[in-house]
């Protein structure tokens, strides 16, 4: 089973991200479960959501305590909430930011993980460019797919098209693919330097 935890703020589509990921996994023919760590709907408050992906029935309903992948949609949470609780050193970490880890003040923290599994994607900027709105959730999923291989990028795009319609769907889909390229480039760049 592959377990993912999403962190963000209310209004950023953190819950939708987990749901779309679960749909992408479903479209890949796998079992998936997505749910939020629940709260009243309040913009700006820290929100956590979860997604589990497996090849068979997923029975547990407990929150994800040891995620295999962490997706951070809002970098301002980094120093406010203990995002890395339960995250092992083999986990994937994807942070939505156009800054470096040094600039974010988490270089040391990032160093605890495998270099090819800790990546950033400027998803908000991509979303602004392709969608006209700073909504990074679907975009980030493209990066997530490229980084982990847990779902195909094509499946993410299909899930986006199921969830949204028209221009919004296409903008998000393009953004997801763009994020996937960013990740692929970053990884081959790192591989080149390793």
């Amino acid at each position, binding site marked *: 089973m592959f377990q993912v935890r999403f962190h963000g703020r209310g209004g950023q589509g953190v819950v939708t991200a987990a749901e779309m990921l679960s*749909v992408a996994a479903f479209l890949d023919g796998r079992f998936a479960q997505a749910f939020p760590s*629940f709260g*009243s709907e309040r913009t700006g408050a820290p929100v*956590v959501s979860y997604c589990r992906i497996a090849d068979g029935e997923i029975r547990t*309903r*407990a*929150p*994800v*305590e040891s995620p295999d992948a962490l997706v951070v949609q809002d970098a301002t949470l980094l120093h406010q909430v203990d995002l890395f609780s339960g995250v092992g050193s083999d986990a994937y970490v994807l942070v939505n930011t156009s800054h470096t880890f040094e600039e974010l003040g988490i270089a040391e923290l990032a160093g605890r993980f495998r270099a090819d599994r800790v990546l950033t994607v400027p998803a908000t900027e991509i979303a602004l460019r392709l969608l006209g709105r700073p909504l990074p959730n679907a975009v980030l999923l493209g990066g997530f797919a490229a980084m982990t291989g847990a779902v195909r990028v094509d499946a993410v795009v299909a899930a986006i098209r199921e969830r949204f319609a028209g221009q919004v769907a296409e903008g998000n889909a393009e953004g997801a693919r763009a994020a996937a390229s960013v990740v692929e480039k970053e990884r081959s760049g790192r591989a080149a330097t390793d």
Partner: protein
Amino acid sequence: MLRQIEGSRAVAEAVGLCRPEVVCAYPISPQTHIIEAIGVLVKSGRLTPCKFVNVESEFAAMSVSIGASAMGARAYTATASQGLLYMTEAVYNAAGLGLPIVMTVANRAIGAPINIWNDHSDAMSVRDAGWVQLFAETNQDAVDLHIQAFRLAEELSLPVMVCMDGFVLTHAFERVELPEQADVDAFLPPFEPRQVLDPDEPVSIGAMVGPEAFTEVRYLAHARQLQALARIPELATEFAATFGRGSGGLVSTYRTEGADTVVVALGSVLGTLKDAADALWDAGVPIGVVGVTTFRPFPAEAVAGAIRGARRVVVVEKAFSIGAHGILAGDVTLALSGLDVGVYAVVAGLGGRPISEGSLRSLLEEASRGSLPALTFLDLDTQLVARELERTVAHRRSGPTAENLLRDIGTSRRVAGPAAST
């Protein structure tokens, strides 16, 4: 058709397939997505003929359902927690009148303190009202139980509530097989009421009944619930034949063969319990899991049968009778009386506190060693409790308990990730 959708949406689709004629909508977290989705079904013409009524309270929701059902219309509504309490008078009324209303209860804790998260205190508060109470373990269950609920309700002239864990199931995206309309129509024929208000054959419904007959009326309601005990497994078999998958029934069992210790529970925690049980079997600790699908009528015989061979039973429940004991534990104890089995009550998940697989494993390990007390509050923060008790001893005006605890948590712990972020 296989879909990956939110539990609430799945339930809305299932209810829509059952062709309700009057749907009452009053919002309360966490059921709102259900009635919203049904509203869209009605407005878009996918569910027709159906009147969707935006009522002014939950009391009105159940009352409008009563009026509609008495006129021979298939009536449905959904609620949770405070809403269920607010309509309690009408909930009893519906059962007493024998109206086959179906209602979804998205289980949520009851305040004070106000809490929007999942536990079973709401369903438990009306367990004596005469409604059939079914508990879904998964969203597939929730879909399937609603279809069986309408059939059972109308056959026996009894209202049925389908309980599903609020947020945990209602807001979870998972794969669900949604049935075809033709199959549902074959399983659930049009509503033929036992009693109906008809100008051509006037009847008076709802007269006062005095001491000379009240006991008999109540006894007949009980008898009907006992009929349900027999009917529910039969319907489950018929359901399986029509839809090609098992669901419903009185109880479910998992790896109870050869298990010394069996854990009994209601609802979604059964999934986590099964994972815990597997891990424990692997570690040489045989644990069986029994799910109670039908809570009212209480399937005492089926529970006793499922427990067979075990030496101890751990009842994990998301409710509690304050000042007394566990509620499900009480029913289970009664069902097992006469058998040489110890029953251990565990109260867990109150107010939406997550139940981790790790906690369950430790709990069940302790149980298998025979060292569980009769009653356990799982993951209780004893220090937090102790500090509040000290405050009450030290000051007469110690302040509101809930607020004191929250302030205490806020100052003594840094907000730290998901475990404390709710």
